[in-house]
C-alpha cells in the first residue's frame, strides 16, 4: 500500500498577519513557515500505521504545490519520516488550480490512500481535498479523526455533529483529516534530519490551468470595542450588563 500526504506550507500559527502592496499581498517579512498543522498530523498518523503494520505500507510520499522556497518545509516532512517528496513547481494561488495540479501528478503515480488536511491555516479554503477527490473521481471521507489498518482492513472514523461514525471504505480514497487523527505531531530527531537530506525530492513542472477565483485584497476585521471591566466584588453587575446592555441572556 502506498500513502500520499498533501502538505501545504503556511505561516506559523502565531504569525502577526500583515499585508503590503496596498493590502494586496501577504507580508512574508520575518514569517516562520511550517507544515500546515493538520497535514503534519496526517503525516504522523501515516508513519504510525507504517510502523505498526510491518510490510503493509510500502512507502509514504509527501506532495506540495509550491515554489522552491517551500523546500525547507518539505525537508521537514522527510525528516519526520516520509520516504520521498514531490514538489510541483507553481505558486499556490487558489484551491481549484492547486487541486488540479495535484490530480495531474496523482493520476500517473497511483496511491492507495491520499490524505489531506481539513483546511490550510492561510486561506482557510477547506477545499483542496474535496476538489482533488472530484478531479480523480475517488471516494472521499471528510472530518476523519481516526485511521487504522485492522485485520488488513481499513478502519476509519469521521466526526458528525455530536459524535462519530465508523466507516469502511475501498481504496483508492481520499481522507480529509481533522483533530484526533494523531495526538501530537512528530518532532524530527537528529537522525531523521540527516536522512532527510538524502531522501528523494522530485520537482515536477506544472501544467497550464486557469484560476477560478482571485484574492484581490485583504483587510483586518474591525477591532472590538474596548473590554468593559467589571469589579470582581460586584459580579451582579456583569449579569446586569449581559441582560440589559448586550441583551444576550
Amino acid at each position, binding site marked *: 500500500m502506498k500513502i500520499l500526504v498533501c502538505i501545504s506550507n503556511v505561516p506559523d*500559527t502565531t504569525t502577526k498577519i500583515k*499585508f503590503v502592496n496596498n493590502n494586496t499581498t501577504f507580508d512574508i517579512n520575518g514569517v516562520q513557515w511550517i507544515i500546515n498543522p493538520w497535514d503534519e498530523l496526517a503525516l504522523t498518523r501515516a508513519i504510525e500505521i507504517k510502523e505498526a503494520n510491518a510490510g503493509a505500507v510500502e512507502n509514504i510520499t509527501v506532495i506540495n504545490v509550491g515554489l522552491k522556497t517551500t523546500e525547507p518545509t518539505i525537508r521537514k516532512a522527510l525528516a519526520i519520516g516520509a520516504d520521498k517528496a514531490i514538489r510541483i513547481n507553481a505558486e499556490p494561488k487558489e*484551491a*481549484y488550480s492547486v*487541486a488540479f495540479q495535484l490530480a495531474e501528478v496523482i493520476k500517473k503515480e497511483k496511491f492507495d490512500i491520499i490524505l489531506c488536511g*481539513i483546511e490550510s491555516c*492561510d*486561506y*482557510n479554503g*477547506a*477545499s*483542496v*481535498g*474535496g*476538489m482533488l*477527490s*472530484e478531479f480523480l*473521481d475517488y*471516494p*472521499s*471521507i*471528510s*472530518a476523519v479523526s481516526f485511521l487504522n489498518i485492522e485485520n488488513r482492513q481499513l478502519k476509519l472514523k*469521521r466526526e*458528525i*455533529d*455530536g*459524535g*462519530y*461514525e*465508523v*466507516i469502511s*471504505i475501498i481504496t483508492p*480514497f481520499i481522507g*480529509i483529516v481533522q*483533530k484526533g487523527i494523531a*495526538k501530537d505531531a512528530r518532532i524530527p530527531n537528529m537522525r531523521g534530519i540527516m536522512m532527510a537530506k538524502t531522501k528523494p525530492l522530485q520537482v515536477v513542472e506544472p501544467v497550464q490551468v486557469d484560476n*477560478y*477565483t*482571485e*484574492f*484581490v485584497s*485583504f*483587510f*483586518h*476585521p474591525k477591532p*472590538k*470595542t474596548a*473590554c*468593559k471591566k*467589571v469589579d*470582581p466584588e460586584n*459580579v*451582579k453587575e*456583569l449579569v446586569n*450588563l*449581559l441582560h440589559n446592555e*448586550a441583551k*444576550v*441572556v
Partner: protein
Amino acid sequence: MSILVFAENWDGKFKKLTYELVSYAHALSKLMNSSVSVVSIGKVDDNELKKLGTYGASKILNVTDSRLQTLDNRAYTRVIAEAATKENAGVVIFALNNTGKAVAPRVSVKLKAGMVSGVIGLPASLEPFTIVKKTYTSKALANVVVKTLVKILTLSQNSFEIAESPVNATIENFSPEISDINTIVKEVNKVTGKILLIDAEIVVSGGRGMKGPENWGPIEELAKILGGATACSRPVSDEGWRPHEEHCGQTGKIIAPNLYIAVGISGAIQHLGGVSSSKCIVAINKDPEAPIFEVANYGIIGDAFKVLPQLIAAFKELKGN
C-alpha cells in the same frame, strides 16, 4: 437563473443554520433578480420542508432515496450538481460545516464553478462577483473575485441574520440517477438529548486556569442555568480533563455563539481562531494582561474559583429561581 441551497437535515429536522442559509440565499436572489430553490436529501416530512418557504425558498427538490440516508460525498455531489443544472443555478450555497466542507468543493469541480468558502455576507459587487471571506483563521478578511459563470459559496455560521419573507414553497420529488455508494457506515456513536456545542447560543468554556477536571462543576452548572453548552481550550482536552468534542480553536471546533464565557483561558491566538466570531465574549481571568481581554466585551479580573459561585448565584436570581 436561480440560487440553489443545499439544506442538510438532522434526523429529519432543519436547524437555525438552515434558515440562515435560506435567508442569505433570499437576500442574494433579490440582488441578482432570481429565485431560491432548495435541494434536501433524506427523509424530511412536508411540514418541515414547507418551513423553508418562510425564509424565501420558492421551490424544494426533495430527494428521498434511502441509499442517501448517510453522507456519501461522491453520491451527494452528483445529486446536488444535477439539481443545480436542472434549476439553472447561478450560485450554489452550502453551510461551512462538516457536510458543506465535504461536498461543496466536489460540486465546484463537477460544475466547473469557482468556490469561496467561509463568506460572511452578500457580494460587494456582482460584476465582477466580489465577496468577502475569512482568512488566516479569522485574523484577516479577503476580497475574492469569482470568475466563473456558476459560483459555489459556503457561508460562515452566524454571519447572516435570519429574516422571514414567506412564500409558498412547492415541493417536487427529485430522483436523479445515483452512482455507487462507497461509504459504508458500520456504526454510529452520537450523544442525544444534549445541546451540541455547534448549536449552542451560549457557551461556557474552561481553560488550564481551572486547574483540574474535578473543578468543572461550576462550569457545567453555569452552562445548565443558561441553557448552553460547555467547551474548553486545547490543553484541557489534551490532558483528558474534558472530552475532545469540547476543544475550540484553530485545531478544534470553530463556533460563533451569542455569548462565549471564557474562564481561566489565556486567549492564545489559536484559541481565538475558533471563538472570536462570537457576538459577545466574557473573560474571567486573574491575569489583567491575559490576551483574552483584548477580544472580550466584558471582563472580570479575578479568581475564577471566587467569581464563578457568585456568577451562578446572580444568574439564578435573574432566571428567577
